[in-house]
């Protein structure tokens, strides 16, 4: 604390107004030197010590007002000081995304550097990375902890940056609290999403990640406590003097009114208004979308689902369209029960076809004998550790036929118009023919919509010989995607050589991402 009350009060007011520490020391020192010079000059004129001090203080002017002017000059000189509403009110929510990108880049860079320095044990193996990108669950499990850590660092970083900027521009505690509270609210409703092949930012209502919200508030609290403890060590200022100085400063040099005359102030005001208008517009559109989505989920989709199920029921109870159908007994080739999970994480046991009726039933106008699944491999299953054959050989037929009817499905169908499986027909004369099963044309992913409105362009198969034959559910789909249904398709293929007896058929996977399965085979 300075011996001269004027200098002490000057320093105290600078601290109160949020002057950064380095500048504060420099300014106090400079003013103290000036005071010393004035006092020395007065002493040289023969005044006593106390008279010299009184004269020096008088000549220096109101030190509290001087602090107001000094801080106003600092604010005026910086963009953040001239536009605190924009800088500390509007930018904090936008800063989270770049902060998160910077942190992610730093993490990736660190992994790369560690890999270069200490070998591949510190890097993600290429095979593992590819496996993760085709399996959303294992990818999520891998990314979630890293993403959580990145979010915490990004939240902390953005709060610290705004706190530092507020200190640097000397805008005071008010704007530190504003920026940190906005960062806090933003961290509750914003979250980065990392999935296989995409990165995005999501917004949700405040959830359980309250810890994120505490970080920016803690930053503001630390700044507040530091400022208060510094203030308490300094000389006090009479309230009347403080008030008087504030009033004079409001109309004096570097006043707020002078900022209103700056063109950049108005340019920024227009920009802020535009940002606000965009935010309101997006919010309104999002509210409309939500209302429309609610209507779809509550009214439209259930009605359309019911209509589809009625249609499927009608096709299941109709007389067979097939003349002289022969249901091939697949019992000996079945490699998965209808109760076993088709795909998903290893701990999920109920992502199955338990709802599919067993035995002889008509699906899509053709009778099938359903006993279980002939499951083939797809890359999705290989990489999630499941073991199924790539080929099921020698399904005995021993008959001539004109057509083959399949009741089938596939999991992890991500790319359409790709051959995901084939039927190899072995004829009695030793020749063979092949029938391709195309994603999108003959089969779609077994999880999907059975409604039409906003179901996406690719929610129906395109082959004229294929139709949706059965739809149902299981506990896992109800939990993960309640709007979706399980879907099985009936596909009819013409036998390329109906004049020859088919001795057997091989069901072969082409090892794309998709894992095809067959639950019924009928010929006629």
């Amino acid at each position: 604390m300075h011996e001269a009350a004027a200098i002490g009060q000057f320093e105290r007011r600078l601290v109160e107004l949020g002057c950064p520490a380095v500048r504060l020391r420099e300014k106090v020192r400079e003013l103290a030197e000036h005071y010393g010079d004035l006092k020395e000059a007065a002493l040289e004129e023969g005044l006593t010590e106390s008279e010299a001090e009184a004269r020096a203080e008088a000549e220096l002017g109101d030190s509290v007002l001087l602090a107001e002017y000094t801080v106003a000059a600092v604010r005026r000189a910086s963009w953040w000081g001239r536009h605190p509403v924009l800088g500390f009110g509007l930018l904090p929510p936008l800063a989270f995304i770049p902060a998160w990108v910077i942190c992610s880049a730093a993490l990736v860079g660190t992994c790369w550097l560690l890999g270069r320095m200490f070998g591949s044990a510190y890097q993600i193996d290429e095979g593992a990375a590819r496996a993760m990108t085709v399996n959303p669950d294992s990818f999520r499990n891998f990314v979630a902890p890293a993403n959580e850590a990145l979010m915490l660092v990004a939240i902390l970083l953005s709060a610290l940056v705004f706190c530092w900027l507020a200190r640097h521009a000397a805008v005071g505690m008010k704007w530190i609290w504003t920026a940190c509270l906005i960062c806090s609210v933003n961290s509750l409703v914003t979250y980065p999403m990392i999935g296989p092949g995409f990165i995005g930012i999501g917004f949700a209502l405040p959830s359980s990640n309250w810890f994120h919200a505490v970080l920016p508030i803690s930053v503001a609290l630390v700044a507040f406590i530091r400022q208060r403890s510094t203030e308490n060590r300094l000389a006090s200022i009479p309230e009347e003097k403080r008030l008087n100085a504030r009033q004079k400063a409001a109309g004096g040099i570097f006043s707020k009114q002078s900022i209103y005359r700056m063109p950049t102030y108005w340019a920024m005001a227009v920009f802020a208004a535009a940002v606000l208008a965009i935010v309101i517009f997006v919010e309104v559109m999002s509210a409309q979308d939500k209302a429309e989505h609610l209507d779809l989920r509550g009214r439209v989709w259930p009605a359309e689902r019911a209509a589809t199920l009625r249609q499927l029921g009608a096709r299941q109870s109709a007389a067979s369209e097939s003349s002289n159908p022969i249901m091939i007994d697949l019992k000996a080739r079945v490699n998965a029960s209808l109760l076993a999970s088709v795909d998903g994480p290893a701990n999920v046991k109920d992502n199955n076809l338990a709802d599919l009726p067993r035995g002889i039933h008509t699906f899509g106008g053709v009778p099938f004998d359903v006993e279980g699944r002939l499951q083939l491999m797809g890359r999705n299953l290989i990489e999630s550790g499941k073991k199924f054959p790539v080929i099921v050989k020698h399904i005995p037929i021993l008959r001539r036929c004109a057509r083959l009817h399949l009741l089938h499905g596939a999991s992890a169908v991500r790319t359409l118009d790709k051959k995901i499986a084939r039927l190899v027909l072995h004829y009695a004369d030793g020749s063979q023919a092949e029938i391709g099963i195309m994603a999108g044309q003959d089969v779609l992913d077994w999880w999907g919509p059975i409604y039409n409105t906003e179901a996406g362009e690719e929610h129906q198969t395109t082959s004229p010989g294929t139709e949706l034959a059965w739809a149902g559910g299981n506990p896992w789909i109800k939990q993960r995607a309640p709007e979706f249904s399980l879907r099985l398709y009936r596909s009819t293929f013409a036998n390329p050589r109906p004049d020859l007896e088919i001795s057997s058929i091989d069901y072969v996977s082409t090892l794309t991402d998709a894992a095809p399965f067959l639950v019924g085979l009928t010929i006629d």
Partner: protein
Amino acid sequence: MRKSNPNFLNGVPELLVLKLLSRREMYGYEIVKAIKAETHQTLAFGEGCIYPYLHYLAQEKLLSSRRKEVGGRSRNYYQLTRRGAKRLEVLDTDWNRVTSGISLLMRGEHA
């Protein structure tokens, strides 16, 4: 012709400081004394008021400052930058234009 005159009254301290520092580097107390002496005490103000201006001009890069020890005492000396010199030229021209305009009016040469 410019549409509006510069806010010359607000710019007076800036003009004086830049003018004085265009001659040589000075510290705050010296600048105040020089203003008082050269204006024959016409301009009287709280001496501390010079500092907000000096700090503002320094942050605007019109002035630079450095600590220098003279006669055993360390002082913060301010110097005019190149940008400050350009600013002084503009202010000087504006000031001369305004004062000559006022002089014309005061002498009534347009009457």
